């Protein structure tokens, strides 16, 4: 989330598309309701009529997987009717930038951008660049009339997204499209704000990242980024999926979104050269220019005194990926399926139900030599060897199940969608023999380390040199019990030497040796600071010797009335509640909307640090620099090297502008928008010539004629490992179901409550039919398309009588987004028959 | 010594007192339920045990009632011209001078009382059973409501009829009560009240 949960109340228009907050984030509806009480309009666009849709002022159905068409039409509507926020667009985004004249778009190349390599299914992005001046800075046309400027290219790209075409693709009635376009575009005025809430409904597509990009473009056009009641807000699915991502539990990132090093980056210097963007524009903050400070401080945190300047701070000990090596989820299970792994940890996760194409996942697990499953409850992953179709005698996988304790039996912090890190205290000791996860890690750390100490082995250095000072140690050198506060301190970082601001005269002391860091601004690239995760620097601070856990704060003050609650817990970065908030003010530092001032520049009040007049008031600004138009002022989008919001986004795989492609499995022979039916850059696991039978897909195949989508329900959480064990939840939502329209049910002779068999190319399962008015057939390209929907919260392992059914992921395909490789489980093809 | 004639046998006496006893328990607890008389806790212990008493006293009552009804069926349902005359003179109870005409084994008032017991007894028993056992029914709520109504109407009827019966069998007619103790009455007493019956049995 660029903004935060409470901020939804500040919106004038709320668009929920790709999310179902009433069922998956119910408490967010409190803030949507609050906004509506203040007159806000609530729009829901969803293939099915959900509990969220039931509360909408305007609801529109849309065929699953056609979001870009829908949003492209909105971009066209905004541009055609001059509804964009002109000053914002021209001064805060790259709309004015001139693009390489060689660049060609889908309007010229029938669905492709310039530089496509058909064989490699990827683009050479050379032409996706800006024209630059002698300083290497992008050339601009402030009038935005140059035919090569981003703004004009945007017009050309979406000129094809006419109302008729969009309605034909999405199945949304034209009048609904117009109503929603008009309503949402009304937020293009300085005193109107519009927010967008999305979740897996956008990400779980082969074009997931571009779905979000399309909305980002709209939000930038309407000036909705950075303001209260605006933003583009991912509603994350798990209590700490934000935190676990922040802390780099992914193959491609280290904590704080530092890229994971690759083989051809042999040393820290090369790493820094490659990943530290540069700009000569003094107005550009270019925050990632600080990268060397963060990676060095990270290495100091994990290797401590063993990390020295001489040994490149232990950079060599970090595991490296081969160039182009992708270890993401689908690849991981593909490798496992091919028998490439001996060992596997499923730590608090149940891939046998949550993984797309779960049959393949379950078969893959059987190829492991050993597996460790850490959880509160037994689950389909840990017990895969006795699952449906498995013969335990044939399965040689050893499985260890380690019981973790629940979240109230230990201490620690979690980060919500709004980047708010909140501390949880322990109510009781761990029950039975269960242990906090941190203690399980501690035990494993120590035991593996002891083996390497005693027996030696392959490259023990990364293990032996790791810092692990997390509590009082016993005579064997083992930490008896993890003191989680010490971990929090390591993440926050500390000064290893006295730190001075060398630019100031005389040099000003920034930090005192041996104390906790104030925030990441004081981190250093020379090894004199240590910080486990730079974005969390400032979460556990020290003043006058006294340590403060900022994440456990319970301040209730809200002076702005915008719901920032800056004294409640702590949000990264530096307790900023709304990011890109410098875009909420005009170049002079005056809020676009004085009634909703996130920050404002007070030119007379002296800065407490410099004592010079001029200071920001309100939320923590995106950097203390004065407003853009003033001396020393900075551009608002500090994470971008150019300082500008990216309407033209050359970083993604498919192209700098989102373009509509159909899902891998879809009911249409061709894409109505272009010759390119599917995303040209996705990795195909199955081809007629190669790929496992498990990865097969069927598009436009009479055997699987219905579009299917998967989702969660309010009563269960993820695969249901926790909630299926709660009789209260199971009572409300006991069995696997499939929702379908009355029209389809009639066609198939299915009645409400009937048991049906749902099948796809990958598997089949039973479900109870919910025949409902809330599902309607779509009229797409003059044909009728039926859509069905299923939850994925059930599994064979519990309830033990099998009364719940199994996961709908048995049906989903092995295909992912071209950028993130998030599997496409929101649009695929199935058949339904009465059981 | 006056000659004695047998008016009631041992079965009749025992059955009468079983019926009377169970009714007494039912009536007292019934009042308790009707008006939530917590004072009765000192007798029954609690309303829960009172309910047990009420229900099982009801069972006893039903058994005894059935025996009573069957036993007196033949004599009670035969109404004759004597009865009409008895009614026209109100059994001689409303005047010191008007005398009741000669009667058979049971006078018309007694037959009427039998009828009340027959109708109200069956109805209160049946409705009580419905409330207690809640038989399977498509609309049990309605059935219970009707039963509840009947139960209470009958109760109202019985709480009037029973005291009247007690009065008539004791204070109003000295000498009657002994029938339900010894089973016999003096011949003279019988002659005056059940002349025709005495003639019939030919004492």
């Amino acid at each position, binding site marked *: 989330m660029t903004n935060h949960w409470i901020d939804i109340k500040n919106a004038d228009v709320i668009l929920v598309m790709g999310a179902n907050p009433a069922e998956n984030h119910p408490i967010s509806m409190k803030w949507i309701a609050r906004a509506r009480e203040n007159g806000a309009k609530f729009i829901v666009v969803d293939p099915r009529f959900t509990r969220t849709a039931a509360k909408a002022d305007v609801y529109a159905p849309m065929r699953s997987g056609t979001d870009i068409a829908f949003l492209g039409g909105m971009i066209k509507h905004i541009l055609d009717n001059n509804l964009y926020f002109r000053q914002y667009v021209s001064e805060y985004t790259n709309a004015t930038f001139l693009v390489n004249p060689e660049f060609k778009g889908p309007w010229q190349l029938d669905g492709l951008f310039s530089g496509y390599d058909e064989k490699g299914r990827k683009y050479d992005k050379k032409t996706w660049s800006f024209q630059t001046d002698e300083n290497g800075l992008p050339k601009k046309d402030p009038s935005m009339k140059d035919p090569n400027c981003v703004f004009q290219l945007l017009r050309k790209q979406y000129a094809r997204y006419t109302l008729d075409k969009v309605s034909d693709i999405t199945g949304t009635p034209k009048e609904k499209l117009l109503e929603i376009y008009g309503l949402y575009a009304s937020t293009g005025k300085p005193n109107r704000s519009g927010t967008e809430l999305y979740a897996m409904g956008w990400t779980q597509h082969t074009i997931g990242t571009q779905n979000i990009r399309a909305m980002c473009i709209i939000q930038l056009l309407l000036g909705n980024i950075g303001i209260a009641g605006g933003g583009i807000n991912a509603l*994350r699915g798990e209590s700490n*999926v934000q935190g676990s991502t922040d802390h780099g*539990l992914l193959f491609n990132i280290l904590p704080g979104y530092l890229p994971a090093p690759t083989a*051809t980056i042999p040393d820290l210097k090369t790493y820094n050269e490659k990943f530290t963007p540069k700009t000569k524009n003094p107005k550009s903050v270019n925050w990632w220019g600080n990268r060397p400070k963060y990676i060095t401080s990270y290495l100091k945190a994990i290797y401590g005194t063993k990390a020295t300047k001489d040994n490149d701070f232990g950079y060599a000990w970090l595991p*490296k990926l081969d160039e182009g090596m992708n270890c993401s989820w689908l690849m991981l299970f593909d*490798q496992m399926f091919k028998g490439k792994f001996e060992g596997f940890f499923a730590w608090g996760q149940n891939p046998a139900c949550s993984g797309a194409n779960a049959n393949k996942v379950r078969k893959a697990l059987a190829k492991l030599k050993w597996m460790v499953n850490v959880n509160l409850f037994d689950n389909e992953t840990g017990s895969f060897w006795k699952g449906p179709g498995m013969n335990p*005698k044939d399965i040689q996988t050893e499985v260890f199940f380690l019981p973790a304790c629940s979240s109230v039996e230990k201490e620690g912090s979690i980060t919500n969608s709004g980047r708010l890190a909140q501390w949880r205290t322990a*109510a009781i000791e761990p029950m039975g023999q269960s242990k906090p996860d941190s203690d399980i890690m501690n035990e494993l750390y120590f035991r593996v380390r002891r083996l390497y100490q005693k027996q030696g082995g392959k490259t023990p250095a990364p293990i032996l040199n790791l810092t692990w000072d997390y509590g009082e140690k016993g005579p064997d050198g083992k930490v008896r019990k993890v003191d989680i506060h010490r971990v929090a301190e390591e993440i926050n970082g500390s000064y290893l030497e006295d730190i001075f601001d060398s630019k100031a005269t005389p040099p000003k002391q920034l930090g005192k040796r041996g104390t906790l860091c104030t925030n990441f601004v004081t981190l250093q690239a020379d090894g004199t600071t240590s910080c486990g995760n730079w974005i969390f620097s400032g979460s556990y601070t020290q003043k006058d010797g006294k340590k403060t856990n900022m994440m456990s704060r319970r301040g209730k003050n809200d002076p702005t009335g915008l719901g920032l609650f800056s004294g409640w817990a702590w949000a990264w970065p530096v307790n900023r509640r709304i990011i890109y908030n410098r875009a909420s003010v005009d170049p002079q530092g005056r809020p676009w909307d004085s009634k909703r001032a996130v920050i404002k520049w007070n030119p007379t009040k002296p800065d407490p640090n410099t004592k010079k007049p001029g200071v920001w008031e309100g939320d923590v600004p995106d950097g203390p620099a004065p407003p853009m138009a003033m001396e020393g002022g900075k551009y608002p989008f500090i994470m971008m090297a150019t300082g500008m919001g990216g309407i033209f986004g050359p970083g993604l795989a498919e192209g700098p502008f989102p373009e509509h492609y159909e899902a891998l499995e879809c009911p249409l022979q061709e894409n109505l928008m272009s010759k390119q039916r599917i995303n040209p850059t996705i990795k195909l696991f199955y081809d007629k010539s190669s790929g496992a039978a498990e990865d097969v897909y069927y598009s436009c195949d009479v055997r699987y004629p219905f579009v299917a989508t998967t989702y969660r329900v309010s009563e269960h959480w993820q695969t249901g490992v926790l909630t299926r064990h*709660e009789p209260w939840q199971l009572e409300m939502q006991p069995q696997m179901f499939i929702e379908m329209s009355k029209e389809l049910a009639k066609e198939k002779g299915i009645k409400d409550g009937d048991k049906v068999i749902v099948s796809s190319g990958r598997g089949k399962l039973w479900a109870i039919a919910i025949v409902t008015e809330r599902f309607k057939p779509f009229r797409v390209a003059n044909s009728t398309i039926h859509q069905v929907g299923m939850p994925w919260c059930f599994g064979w392992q519990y309830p033990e009588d099998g009364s719940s059914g199994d996961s709908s992921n048995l049906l989903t395909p092995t295909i992912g987004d071209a950028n993130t490789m998030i599997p496409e489980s929101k649009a695929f093809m199935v058949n339904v028959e009465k059981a | 010594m006056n000659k004695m004639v047998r008016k009631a046998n041992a079965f009749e006496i025992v059955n009468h007192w079983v019926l009377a006893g169970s009714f007494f328990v039912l009536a007292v607890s019934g009042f308790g339920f009707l008006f939530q008389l917590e004072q009765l806790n000192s007798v029954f212990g609690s309303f829960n045990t009172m309910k047990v008493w009420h229900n099982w006293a009801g069972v006893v009552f039903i058994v005894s009632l059935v025996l009573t009804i069957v036993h007196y069926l033949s004599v009670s349902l035969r109404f004759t011209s004597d009865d009409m005359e008895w009614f026209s003179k109100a059994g001689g109870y409303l005047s010191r001078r008007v005398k009741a005409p000669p009667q058979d084994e049971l006078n018309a008032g007694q037959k009427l009382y039998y009828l009340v017991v027959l109708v109200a007894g069956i109805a209160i028993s049946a409705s009580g059973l419905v409330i207690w056992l809640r038989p399977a029914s498509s609309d049990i709520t309605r059935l219970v409501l009707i039963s509840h109504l009947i139960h209470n109407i009958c109760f109202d009827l019985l709480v009037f009829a029973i005291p009247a019966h007690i009065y008539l069998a004791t204070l109003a007619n000295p000498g009657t009560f002994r029938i339900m103790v010894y089973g016999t009455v003096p011949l003279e007493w019988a002659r005056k009240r059940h002349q025709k019956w005495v003639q019939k049995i030919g004492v």
Partner: protein
Amino acid sequence: MNVSRRNFLKLSGGSLLLSSLSIDLAPARSYAQTLRIKNAKESSTICPYCSVGCGIIVHASDGKVINAEGDPDHPISEGTLCSKGASLFQIINNPTRVMKPRYRAPGAGEWQEVEWDWALDEIAKRVKQTRDKTFKISTKSKVKGKGPDGKEVEAEKEFVVNRTDGIAHVGSAALDNEECYMLQKLLRSWGLVYIEHQARI
């Protein structure tokens, strides 16, 4: 008490007989029941389910959780919870929770309960075994460089990678931040690169 008073008046007004017999049909009774959380220990936590981050107060007594309900001071949730948050109690006190480590031997048809020490030692052995067997100190990669003639050429070179491709990990978005940090640190120290979790799906 308004209601029963009103009721009472109405009844007594409506039926003289009833009131004269002083039959109060709806007596206002205060049935004293002690609040079971009155003397419990309170601690604050955040809901473990979705990412809204609602506050929950947990009441514990004698080392047992006896109640868990919304934290009214929490600025986001203001004491409210959805069905999942409201049932936190049932996660903690749940007879189907696994309370002892388990092991499933190759080819076995059932789990067996084991001791922590044994399980952890065995896992450590396997981590080491697999790591030692599959550890790659270096791999070959193609890199662009300048040939002797000054032209750009692609050449294969050996690079240090210090990783194992023999062990993979998935999870865990439900751990605390500190645990996530420890976990990535631990896994990377073993050389794992196949590290994924819920964010990817």
